[in-house]
């Protein structure tokens, strides 16, 4: 490897901008940090040799330089930002409202939003956040994070670990904060040192040169938070594998037991009761709001029993052994054996069954000639009655409504508003009478029917929608987020302050200072430590710089 030797005798790696030891600018490399023609030195990376700025021959070098550039990083962030914004113009596919006339994305976007909606759909923006190019963008940000950090951290770490207090005059005078004092005494210098120590500066001295330094660890903040982000990205990749993440939904009716999907038949859940509560309208505190807003829900809760299946004999029905009995509420999910059950949806007052009776149309007392019960989830096609009648269920609409063309249809598959078309075969008669029956509806097919159907009784239940999942990637996200926070706080809430002092033999004194942020604070520090001495307050050369322009 080629090296550059500084006049102080220190051998620097190729591409060094400021000598690692004495800080003297290395003539031929000033363009790298943009120092040419500038009064002040760029101290961002302490003038260290960065791989990205030194080598650009091979393809690897070029890729490395490309991704290590802050400019490229910012561009990637900006692209991700714009893409994310675009995705919220119209709802994503998963957020198409449940009550939309047609939830098919091919229809929904155009019918709701016109041409723009159609373009949105055709460009695939309705699934933007899972599109290959969005993921690629995020992945590129990840690559940039790694390369950027390595490119800067390694040389910076080396340079800051072996700092030499003895700095070249051209290094000192080109710092942003700088002053020259014509004469000073040793006492004054000692006072300054004492004050610096009180302010918790670490002091290093050689041959009349002094370096006071504090908060160096804040320089590692950016690299620490980048590590946190990379862990988060890795966690996101892990989460796409079934080993780390599983997510299923299950609807359970009150009083029923369902196998939990995704558990390979290992777990079953029973819905003992679904509880829906609302806020008390007479509650003094909320009276006003409730009278305006109407009813407000206060609790969604499912009382469940979770069973573990014991399949000692293969092929046989498993034996269910209860393992947990608990209530699941919103914001209070149930955890068991590494799985989680979450209250997600509910459906109140579904009909479970309806019992009908047959009576003669002319009978004012509606005396029952026979009755039958329809299981609304699993209706039988035919019913043989004790009196010899046969009833055939021709049509079943679980959630009846008349569509735009006036044709009966079912809005959902849930038995919320069931309606039926029955054919009644009276005893020995093979020509049926057709009836249409629903809640509050009883229509005679021909107007000449001898027999009529009536609803005798019905049963209702609530249905609870539960999410069943495990997410083993969460600890990784947690660790990543924690490291990220530590990193940003470390980098943002502390600053790396350095003050260089050189007392020459003739008694004159040079002072220079640098910080990575909060110059105001550094100036205040210097003001305090030089109090009661004749040492001149540093001047902010950046301000002067700007005035010159």
């Amino acid at each position: 490897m080629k090296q550059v030797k500084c006049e102080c005798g220190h051998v620097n790696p190729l591409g060094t901008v400021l000598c690692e030891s004495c800080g003297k600018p290395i003539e031929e490399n000033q363009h790298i940090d943009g120092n040419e023609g500038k009064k002040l030195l760029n101290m961002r990376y302490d003038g260290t040799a960065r791989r990205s700025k030194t080598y650009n021959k091979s393809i690897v070098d070029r890729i490395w330089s490309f991704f290590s550039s802050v400019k490229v990083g910012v561009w990637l962030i900006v692209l991700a930002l714009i893409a994310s914004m675009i995705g919220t113009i119209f709802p994503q596919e998963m957020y198409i409202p449940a009550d939309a006339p047609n939830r098919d994305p091919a229809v929904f976007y155009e019918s709701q939003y016109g041409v723009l909606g159609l373009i949105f759909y055709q460009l695939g923006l309705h699934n933007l956040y899972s599109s290959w190019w969005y993921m690629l963008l995020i992945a590129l940000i990840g690559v940039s994070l790694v390369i950027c950090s390595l490119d800067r951290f390694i040389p910076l770490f080396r340079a800051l670990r072996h700092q030499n207090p003895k700095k070249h005059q051209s290094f000192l005078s080109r710092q942003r904060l700088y002053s020259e004092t014509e004469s000073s005494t040793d006492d004054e210098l000692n006072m300054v040192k004492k004050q610096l120590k009180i302010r918790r500066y670490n002091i290093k001295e050689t041959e009349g040169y002094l370096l006071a330094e504090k908060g160096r660890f804040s320089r590692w903040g950016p690299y620490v938070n980048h590590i946190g982000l990379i862990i988060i990205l890795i966690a996101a990749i892990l989460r796409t594998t079934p080993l780390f993440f599983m997510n299923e939904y299950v609807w359970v009716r009150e009083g029923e037991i369902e196998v939990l999907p995704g558990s390979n038949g290992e777990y079953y859940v029973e819905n003992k009761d679904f509880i829906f509560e609302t806020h008390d309208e007479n509650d003094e505190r909320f009276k006003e709001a409730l009278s305006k807003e109407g009813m407000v829900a206060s609790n969604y809760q499912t009382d469940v029993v979770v069973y573990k299946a014991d399949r000692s004999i293969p092929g046989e029905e498993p034996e269910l052994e209860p393992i947990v009995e608990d209530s699941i509420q919103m914001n209070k999910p149930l955890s068991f054996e590494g799985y989680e059950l979450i209250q997600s949806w509910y459906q109140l007052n579904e009909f479970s069954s309806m019992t009908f009776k047959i009576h003669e149309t002319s009978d004012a007392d509606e005396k029952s000639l026979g009755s039958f019960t329809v299981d609304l989830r699993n209706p039988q096609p035919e019913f043989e009655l004790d009196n010899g009648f046969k009833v055939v269920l021709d049509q079943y609409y679980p959630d009846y409504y008349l569509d735009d063309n006036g044709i009966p249809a079912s809005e959902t598959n849930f038995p919320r508003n069931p309606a039926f078309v029955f054919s009644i075969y009276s005893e020995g008669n093979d020509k049926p009478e057709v009836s249409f029956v629903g809640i509050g509806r009883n229509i005679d097919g021909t107007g000449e029917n001898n027999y009529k159907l009536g609803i005798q009784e019905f049963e209702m239940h609530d249905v609870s929608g539960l999410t069943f999942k495990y997410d083993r990637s969460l600890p990784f996200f947690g660790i990543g987020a924690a490291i990220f926070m530590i990193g940003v706080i470390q980098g943002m809430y502390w600053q790396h302050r350095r003050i260089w002092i050189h007392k020459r033999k003739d008694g004159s004194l040079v002072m220079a200072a640098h910080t990575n942020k909060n110059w105001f604070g550094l100036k205040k520090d210097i003001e305090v430590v030089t109090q009661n001495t004749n040492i001149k307050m540093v001047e902010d050369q950046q301000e002067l710089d700007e005035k010159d322009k």
Partner: protein
Amino acid sequence: MDLLNISSTALYTAFILYLIATFFFGATIKDKQTDNNKKGFSGKIAITLTIIGFLAQLVYFTTRWISSGHAPVSNMFEFLTFLGMALVFAFIILYAYYKLSFLGLFALPISMIIIAYASMFPTDISPLVPSLQSHWLYIHVTTVALGQGILGISFVVGLMYLIKEIDQTVKSKETTWLEIVMYILFVFIGFIVITTSFNLMNYNATFEYGPGNRTVTTDYHLPAIAAPTNSTLVTEDVMQPWFETPEWFQGEDAGRKFNTLIWSVITGTIIYLITRLILRKRVGATLQHLLKNIKADLLDEIEYRSVAIGFPVFTLGGLIFAAIWAEIAWGRFWGWDPKEVWAFVTWLFYAAYLHLRLSRGWHGKKSAWLAVIGFGIIMFNLIVVNLVLAGLHSYA
């Protein structure tokens, strides 16, 4: 007097105190900066009033918490007043460090606009729906508001920087954009003025409209220019609507909110034009005067520092705490809901800002513009996402 009355009186008191404090901060201009360390008398009064005002707002917050039984950060009114309070808090902290009176002259009015804007939303104490019944409600929301308040200071300081540094002697792109920002602030004032006026008159017009098979009514408290989509006006003897709100406005009561927006723009424009007529120059040019004695470098640094301090707080509240709560309540910590996406956009934006500050050439004006835009994104997430994009986060 019951707690709730104490609470609203305290908020009102805080508002008045901020107003008076602003005038005292204004008076410090005359103090002229003869010596940096010697603080003028009016400056002392101003900061004292601000602190008392902040304490009064704390009284509002605690009494409202006690009387409702939950942290008052559960709807738009409560969130925005808290945001205003966070902004004042961030200002007080910065004042303690930088001793900059001028900051108060700009930060307090912005905070007052936010609080007044908040008061235009329903102020009743409302009960919590099940998804909000969690300690994470106040952990998440207060942290977000605090983060946004600190970032709000960077907006205030960035704006001050632009007012000071932009050359107002000639008309340029920069002066135009700065006037647009000023104009937007006037639209907020317009909203407050017009809403208050019609509220005092008790104006009401009721509309009926039917999404799907249901029928919903909505009460307009401003004359209807834009009616809800597919609606009929029920109230008699009121102004007939001019047109209907386009269908693509999503969200609860989009028609009414859109109508309010139209009124705010009209009123804001009128107030702005009157102001211009009186001043006979750009609003930015008028304000530039006030900032003569202040160092641009210092403004630039405070702006950067408030982003540096606000960014971690916002990340913690708006992304990390938000994700933890979403995981508990909905079983997924991230769902690309519009509110979440815009929190992410905000985060990316400030991340870009912090990276740009690393390079030369992105200090000063450019960076000040970014600080202004950043707060614009925060406000967009707060207002437009609720108005137009709607999602799971419909309460605030």
